[in-house]
């Protein structure tokens, strides 16, 4: 009796897991199917029907060219690279002085960063827009870059947590050798922080790659489109060509999928660390 009950529980457990996995996968997989169908095939088959030709990439070519996706990827790449490099530097510097020096105002500084996390980004856009305008940054790549740099508190947290695990005696022995604080930061702390840097790069990178409203509001110029806004443009004009939209969706997803498979281990850690506190 006991084993029977145990087995039943195990079966139910696996059924629920498979159902959960199907629920997570089906919406994406059907989009993938549709992206490989011809227009006539799409019109005559249901979403669950497999495509006839698994190598029909015509929709991908069309979406890539019509949607000017290459430009979207280029702009995204530029913004991601500059923002991440900047956020890593400023975040680690901030964390370094906050974790290593006790100075007057350090608590207040920490509090200021903390308080800022409470302000939901979307709410202040109305006013932020005026600031970007006043700085003459509207419709430039610097608008999103500065905003991604400016609001980064999670990075400071992740770095500070990690800095706690780096022994201060390392700093002290470097000081005995006459190293300056800059040298300590640049030669000792920063290299040791590399696991945390990977985490920050992933968390930031995912956020920036997926962000929609910042580029949408601040860079409406079509030459500045990023992946999100390029994808959004398919709405409307392609209403009757869902197979092309589906290819565009896949084009936006594939980089995420590759990054996920390659960096899985770090991603799990990164999100757990970045979001708990």
């Amino acid at each position: 009796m006991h084993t029977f009950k145990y087995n039943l529980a195990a079966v139910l457990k696996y059924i629920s897991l498979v159902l959960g996995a199907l629920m997570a996968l089906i919406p994406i997989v059907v989009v993938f199917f549709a992206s490989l169908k011809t227009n006539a095939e799409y019109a005559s088959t249901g979403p669950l029907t497999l495509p006839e030709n698994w190598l029909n990439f015509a929709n991908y070519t069309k979406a890539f060219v019509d949607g000017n996706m290459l430009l979207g990827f280029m702009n995204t790449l530029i913004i991601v690279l500059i923002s991440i490099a900047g956020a890593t530097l400023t975040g680690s510097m901030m964390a370094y002085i906050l974790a290593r020096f006790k100075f007057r105002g350090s608590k207040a500084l920490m509090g200021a960063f903390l308080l800022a996390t409470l302000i939901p980004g979307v709410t202040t856009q109305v006013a932020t827009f005026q600031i970007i305008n006043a700085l003459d940054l509207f419709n430039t790549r610097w608008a999103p870059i500065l905003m991604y740099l400016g609001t980064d508190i999670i990075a400071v947290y992740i770095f500070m947590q990690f800095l706690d695990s780096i022994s201060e005696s390392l700093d002290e022995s470097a000081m005995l050798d006459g190293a300056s604080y800059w040298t300590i930061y640049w030669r000792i702390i920063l290299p040791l922080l590399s696991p945390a840097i990977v985490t920050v790069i992933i968390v930031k990178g995912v956020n920036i790659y997926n962000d929609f409203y910042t580029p949408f509001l601040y860079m409406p110029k079509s030459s500045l489109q990023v992946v999100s806004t390029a994808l959004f443009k398919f709405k409307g004009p392609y209403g009757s060509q869902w197979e092309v939209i589906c290819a565009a969706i896949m084009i936006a997803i594939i980089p995420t999928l590759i990054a996920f498979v390659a960096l899985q281990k770090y991603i799990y850690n990164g999100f757990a660390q970045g979001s708990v506190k």
Partner: protein
Amino acid sequence: MPKLSNMSYKNQRILIIFLFSLVPVVLLLTFSYLPVFKMFQYSFTSWNGLSKNMEYIGFDNYKTIFTKPEYFAVFKVSLYYFFATFVQMGLALYFATILSFNVRMKNWFKGILFFPTLLNGVAIGFIFLFFFKPEGTLNTILDLLGLGVLQQKWLLNPQLINISLAFASVWRYMGMNFIIFLGAISSIGSDIYEASEIDGANRWHQFRHIIIPSIKRILQLNLILAVSGAIGVFEIPYVMTGGSNGSGTFVIQTVDVAFKYSKLGLASAMAVILLGIVVLVTILQRILIKEEK
């Protein structure tokens, strides 16, 4: 410029604290605090965002929002997302619990359940447009299961639209809760489980008396974040419906009022209210968690 290593450590310290905090602090002030300050200022004006002079009109904007039903009605939409969060957290907790014990193909299930969270918001909007289309995925699946009678126009029926959109939101964010819970559960020492097994505890007892108490704080935090999350919903409805058919959320309305209708003063007042709710909820959370300790 003098060489850094020639300076005394005391002076170096002052210099490095100043230099290292300069850029982050300037950015913080410009893009976090200045906007909030400006927002309060605008909220008392009838400014349209363009004209040179701002006319101060006192609390008129706030009065408009609280008295005109079309401005206040959007909060009802938030309720759908708020309740959806409970579904989302329930599922996340369930999957996190079973996947923290021995399961075949554990990493595959973990990966698959978590992956949607990483996807582009616009892509998710499109994926679910496709999912809810009249001849779309959901209706086809229902047909296949012999449940054809349940077929609906998910995004055209005003009674279903917000449920459908909230479902998409659950799909998107469940993985995030899941991974956080999984992290929290995995930090519980295995000796506690072993001890409880010796005492004859089954999985349910372990869940009820070990797992739940250990992750209580994170659970509470997530519950309270659900409130601000529900009010801050923007991307999914904006991409999928543009806020039509009664699916407009508070943020969509704020953005529209500000940028479509150029009523910056009014939009700022809306944003101030939104900020007020979020701050209130956060204070509440702090108090609740303090009492727990």
